[in-house]
């Protein structure tokens, strides 16, 4: 059974929900793999915040859609092409610089989005935004501080951060390829794009990292359900248990 999302409000929210879910899953892979104990706890903590945020959004989506599906159904029973996460968050944990750069670029993006959603007319979204902005503010500060440490730390840490940023910027273009649904529910798409670009440019400059150009991406857009090679692998691991044992309870 394919799960479709039919109402425009839900189609908008599922982009955020899936983005947070997939980044949460990616970050959970860092549990026990952090560079040292305290950072390991910090990353896992942020991962749980992301998954909790996704769950809240799936609950809202479920209420809007009114099909009697649970948050778990939306997370665990949709296929790759039915997912609407940004490609940026699917990218792997190649090294710690990738983890940090991905988190930073994501955090600036969702910080801009949830700030605009503080005045959203979708039921309950304004309240949820107020709550999650506190989490995002913390995660954003944590990631940005690490951008500086890596960028101006040693030649090796700078080289690794530059490589991560160069790769991840390939997926920055689609963030701003807004469609009619984005335009309907975001209050100011120009402000979102300019806010992200100016904040990121400032951080990269201070971190001594060259800013890559944002090129047009020769892949179809995440808003149509198209992804990089990594999402299918993430889902196969994430969804294995609930799909193999549909009645499992824990």
């Amino acid at each position, binding site marked *: 059974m394919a799960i479709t999302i039919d109402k425009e409000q839900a189609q908008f929210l599922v982009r955020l929900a899936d983005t947070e879910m997939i980044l949460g899953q990616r970050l959970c892979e860092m549990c026990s793999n952090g560079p*040292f*104990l*305290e*950072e390991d*706890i*910090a990353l896992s*903590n942020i991962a749980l915040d992301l998954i909790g945020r996704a769950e809240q959004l799936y609950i809202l989506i479920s209420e809007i859609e009114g099909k009697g599906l649970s948050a778990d159904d939306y997370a665990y029973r949709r296929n790759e092409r039915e997912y609407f996460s940004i490609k940026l968050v699917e990218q792997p944990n190649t090294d710690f610089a990738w983890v940090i750069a991905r988190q930073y670029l994501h955090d600036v993006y969702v910080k801009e989005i949830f700030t605009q959603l503080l005045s959203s007319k979708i039921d309950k979204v304004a309240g949820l935004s107020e709550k999650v902005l506190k989490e995002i503010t*913390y995660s954003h*500060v*944590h990631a940005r*501080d690490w951008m*500086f*440490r890596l960028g101006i730390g040693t030649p090796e840490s700078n080289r690794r951060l530059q490589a991560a940023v160069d790769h991840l910027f390939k997926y920055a273009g689609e963030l701003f390829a807004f469609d009619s649904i984005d335009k309907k529910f975001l209050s100011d798409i120009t402000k979102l794009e300019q806010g992200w670009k100016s904040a990121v440019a400032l951080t990269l400059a201070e971190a001594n990292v060259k800013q890559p150009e944002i090129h047009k991406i020769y892949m179809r857009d995440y808003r149509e359900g198209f992804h990089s090679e990594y999402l299918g692998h993430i889902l196969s691991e994430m969804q294995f248990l609930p799909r193999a044992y549909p009645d499992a309870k824990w």
Partner: protein
Amino acid sequence: MESGDKVWEVFIQKKSGLPFKHAGSVHGYDKKMAVQNARDAYCRRGEGRELWVVPANCIVSVPMDEAEAYFDPQEDKIYRHPTFYVIPDGVENL
């Protein structure tokens, strides 16, 4: 930013007005990392509203071999304890 992998002692205040209590220690290369690590390790379940981190090497402690001279003489001075007073009802946090 300072460099070097340092140990920091963590103190948490449960709510405004209460004393800070020692919670444990964390690693951190700089002040910001230390306070963030302390938050993630010790303050995720409503343990407090304020947090201090102090470089462990800034804390001065009583030398181990002088502990007897510092602490033993107080053991037989019962009058130093405020047990001869009645604490009025309604006094909290004493």
